């Protein structure tokens, strides 16, 4: 079995094991969840380091023909585009299980749903058949809605849960419509990207179809990422979601939409790319500037994080809109970095919420003094969030600035302003109000995370710094895939993908 299939299977096995554990052994629920998510994280690590950089082909491929009548294939594999995302999904999943010890209501259900989200996310990133990509994403999304509904907090819970469900469902539907059109119009009788892309090279879609399908995918998947102006679900949803759900959704599930655009829309629909990147370039300004300005006005830490994560997505969209190897490489670096950062931010805000009972900025203060570890981790996360070097976000953002300059110079000016100034203003304001100052009454009785309780935060912070200091390990893996995507997206005709070799042999076809 491909290690990738094994990786996807782990969380589902974990969920099954928990379901089968009766209530009298309830202590084992959390342990099982920790075990399986930990194994998934380790498997993700081993896949990342076993991956041979410099090759554009798919590695560790697994393939089973599911239903040849409608061309359904279970087909998984890793390339530069998803190897980093699989790694961080494992890490964020483990951290999310780690911070969930406070769950008292229906813990069994909670951990089962959590593992379903992790498994669904892993499945969507690993799938090379777009039907499975979509299907796994649904497996992850439905538990997200349930968790917000059942374990959510705050007065706005129902409204926020409603809004996030509405938006993400509509987004998913539009994306599904796009995929169905792709399936129906291509005539290839498959949604396997490898086969489909070979087919489309021989039988290119008419320009009008490409424009239609790309538009559906862009707005469908874009909504699931929070592309302006379809973004307002995100901050509210994260504000009310339980900590682990917010970590997984903001960190991981949001990246599925971006990933699908890069996996399907860009390489398969070059005419669509040419037609739509202008629109994407305009909309990404909404994320970069508008969402940043909205973040400046937030009075609640989670709403601030939610809006700032939308602003970070603006950098990814800018990289995509540049359709350049440098820009798209940078965009993927940000996707990986932001997965860690967003999860870390929500993990820390969850800790603060548990200690203080509020996330209102004006009521917090003095976290550095009262909670040295959590306070320091929070300062590190906030600095990473305003693009300080030493964290992986900087490496991605600065790469996007370079990559986008030739195509979109004015957007780069806006992105630099958004990242350096607007990001700086709201992140430093948050440090000033939460970490600095005298210890506030709501934190006066709080205790710091100690010992093994620090692990979930370190699991996220350490790789964030590692990839920030040495992004080359990440970039060397992404680069060949970015070259392949850009070569096809700008070809006017979809080109053949790298031939997939049977595992474990490494397929070596690339733009070199």
């Amino acid at each position, binding site marked *: 079995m491909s290690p990738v299939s094994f990786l996807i299977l782990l969380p589902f096995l974990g969920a099954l094991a928990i379901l089968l554990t009766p209530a009298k052994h309830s202590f084992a629920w959390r342990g099982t969840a920790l075990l399986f998510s930990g194994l998934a994280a380790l498997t993700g690590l081993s896949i990342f380091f076993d991956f041979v950089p410099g090759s554009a082909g798919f590695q560790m491929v697994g393939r089973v023909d599911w239903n040849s009548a409608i061309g359904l294939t279970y087909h998984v594999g890793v390339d530069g585009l998803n190897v980093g995302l699989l790694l961080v999904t494992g890490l964020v999943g483990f951290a999310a299980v780690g911070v969930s010890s406070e769950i008292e209501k229906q813990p069994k259900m909670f951990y089962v749903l959590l593992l379903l989200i992790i498994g669904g996310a892993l499945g969507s990133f690993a799938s090379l058949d777009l039907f499975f990509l979509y299907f796994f994403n649904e497996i992850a999304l439905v538990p997200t809605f349930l968790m917000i509904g059942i374990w959510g907090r705050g007065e706005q819970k129902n409204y926020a849960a409603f809004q996030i469900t509405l938006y993400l*469902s509509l987004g998913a539907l539009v994306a599904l419509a796009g995929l*169905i059109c792709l399936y129906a119009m291509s005539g290839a009788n498959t949604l396997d990207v490898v086969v489909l892309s070979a087919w489309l090279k021989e039988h290119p879609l008419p320009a009008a179809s490409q424009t239609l399908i790309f538009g559906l995918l862009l707005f469908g998947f874009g909504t699931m990422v929070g592309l302006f102006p379809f973004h307002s679900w995100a901050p509210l949803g994260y504000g009310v979601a339980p900590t682990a759900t917010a970590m997984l959704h903001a960190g991981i599930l949001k990246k599925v939409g971006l990933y699908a655009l890069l996996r399907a829309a860009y390489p398969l629909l070059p005419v669509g790319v040419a037609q739509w990147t202008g629109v994407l370039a305009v909309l990404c300004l909404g994320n970069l500037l508008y969402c940043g300005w909205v973040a*400046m006005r937030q009075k609640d830490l989670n709403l601030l994080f939610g809006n700032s994560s939308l602003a970070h997505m603006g950098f990814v969209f800018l990289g995509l809109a540049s359709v350049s190897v440098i820009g798209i490489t940078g965009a993927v670096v940000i996707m990986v970095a932001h997965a860690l950062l967003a999860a870390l931010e929500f993990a820390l805000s969850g800790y603060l919420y548990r200690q203080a009972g509020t996330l209102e900025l004006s009521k917090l203060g003095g976290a550095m003094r009262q909670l040295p570890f959590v306070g320091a981790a929070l300062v590190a996360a906030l600095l990473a969030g305003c693009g300080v070097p030493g964290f992986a976000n900087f490496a991605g953002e600065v790469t996007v600035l370079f990559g986008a300059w030739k195509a979109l110079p004015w957007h780069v000016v806006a992105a630099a302003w958004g990242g350096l*100034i607007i990001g700086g*203003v709201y992140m430093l304001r948050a440090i000033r109000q939460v970490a600095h100052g005298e210890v506030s009454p709501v934190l006066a009785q709080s205790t710091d995370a100690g010992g093994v309780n620090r692990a979930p935060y370190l699991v996220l912070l350490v790789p964030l710094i590692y990839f920030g200091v040495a992004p080359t390990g990440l970039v060397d893996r992404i680069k060949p895939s970015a070259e392949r995507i850009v070569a096809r997206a700008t070809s006017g005709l979809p080109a053949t993908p790298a031939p997939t070799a049977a595992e474990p042999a490494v397929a070596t076809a690339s733009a070199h």
Partner: protein
Amino acid sequence: MDHSAAPLAVTSSHAQDLAWVVLLFPLVSALSITFGLRRSRTLTNTMALSAVVTGFFLSVALFLGFGFGPGVNADALPWLSIPGLNIHLGLKVDSLSTLMLMVVTGISSLVHLYSTQYMDEDQDYPRYFAALGLFTFAMLGIVLSDNLVQTFIFWELVGVTSYLLVGFWYEKPAAADAAKKAFLTNRIGDFGFILGIVIVWAATGTVQFDELAQKLHADPKVLGNMASLAGVLIFLGAMGKSAQVPLHVWLPDAMEGPTPVSALIHAATMVAAGVYMLCRVFFLLDLPAAWPDALSFLSPFSALGIIAWVGGITSLLAGLIAIQQDDIKRILAYSTLSQLGYMIMAVGCAGPDAAMFHLTTHACFKALLFLGAGSVIVGCHHEQNIWKMGGLWKRMPTTAICFAIGTAALCGVPVVTAGFYSKDAIFAAALADGRHMLFGIGILVAGLTTLYMARLFLVAFLGTPRSEQAEHAHESPWRMTLPLTILAFPSVALGWLPIGGFLKHRFFPEVAVHYPDSLTEILFEPFNHSPLGAVLGLGMIIFGAFAAVMLYWSAAQDPLPDRVPGISRALSRRLYFDQVYEAVFIPLHDAVAALADWFDRWIVQGFIVRGASGGVELFGRGLRLVQTGNLQTYAFFFVAGVALVVLLALN
């Protein structure tokens, strides 16, 4: 175009790789303090101090080994490489960087020693030394960098670590606010800096200094009509770090940090980084004016011309404001601004050698003055207002003598101070470049400098004590006075070394440099070299000192507010820069944010979302709660979609 990694000048010895040790040792120190040594004060001390002192001696060795040659590169590490964009972490070991290395590690060593006493009673002693080590690491990264992106990386890290140091006492609102203000003001400069870097890269395909110099040498027009814009944008970065008007407002506020921090980062290192960076990329700035069409109205100005004027204006405004400040550290902060203005002006007058010369001497005497101020503040039981001091000459003799030497050096007293020689080099550069207005401003500022420094010295050290604290002032312990004493020597003697000529030869190899050969010639070199500047400068010192004595000799309070109330008020309120920013620019940006927030709250969420929800409600009957209708509807859509796939497949 060749995008391969750094052209490594390979020598047989690789002694230049010692530069990595100098760079990384403070980082190792900071990390080991954070993760263990903090439990012991002695270990923290020893580790922090030995890291920088070792760095200083290695820097001297590197200077002696490589400072006189063309410069070499240490082995580089890959950082990020994509076709078309190659960034590595490399170290450039040449005369400019090794000179700066000595300045940074030297001052940093003394500040570390001083801090072991000054911060002795602070509960967060280990955090202080860890942050100081991190800061030193970041600063050395700028100094040694061999490419623009690496410079930017460490540039930002200097910003962050100074944020940690200025906000060291983060429970104090003023300190936390000052740290934030410093960081954000710097960020405005960095915004320009990164755009400048991207523009240079887009035109040349490289960010490495050596390759850029080669490309510009081969084709001086390689930057096309972006040349001046790129230069000014890069300069914007320097305006932030080196606190030039109008981005200067953070520096006086940053005095809320511990005083040794001010000596290190607000005198010798961080604020000097802008000047140093401009000297490093001087070849990029020294290009004829060429602007894009949209900015053609700027075509009379070259990048250097703009730089020179910003520097000149900063030196003048800061010199004026310093006259009416009462806090000893703020007077020094404004004098730093004024001297940084001199250095920037020198760069703009095509005198990077003069700028670096003044940077070096200024680092010594300004660090001396700040550490002296720290000694005074501790001696007077944390009193910082000079009008509550007085008579300290008798009570703190070592501090007073050292402070007097620093003051003389800052004023540029001829022959016996280092400041005389470096300041004169700046006047000479302005004259040689034909910028007579700026030369006049420079001379005028020399008079202002003497006026405010003599005021400070007369009021704080002479006369009689004006408060209880001053009455009971006491001399500081040796760990504080020793660094002062050590710094007094270069403050006097550094100008006698041929640093000016050495740097001139480095920047302009084609110009013949005359090194003075007799003692008299050495001592009176400025009077030969640029007599006009030396004589006028001397005149202004005498005039400034005379004015200060007339006004402040045993004065009980400042006479200026009574004599010229309007001017005095404007100056003591710092010419209203902060008020204007707080009344205009910050509210403007906030208003945009408020508008966006309002739009998001009421239009996007209120109208569109609720409207859509109403529509869907009609359509799907029950979308009230997640657990009920909505999920069912959703499941319905999902199944319908799948059914559609199957249907299409069967057709």
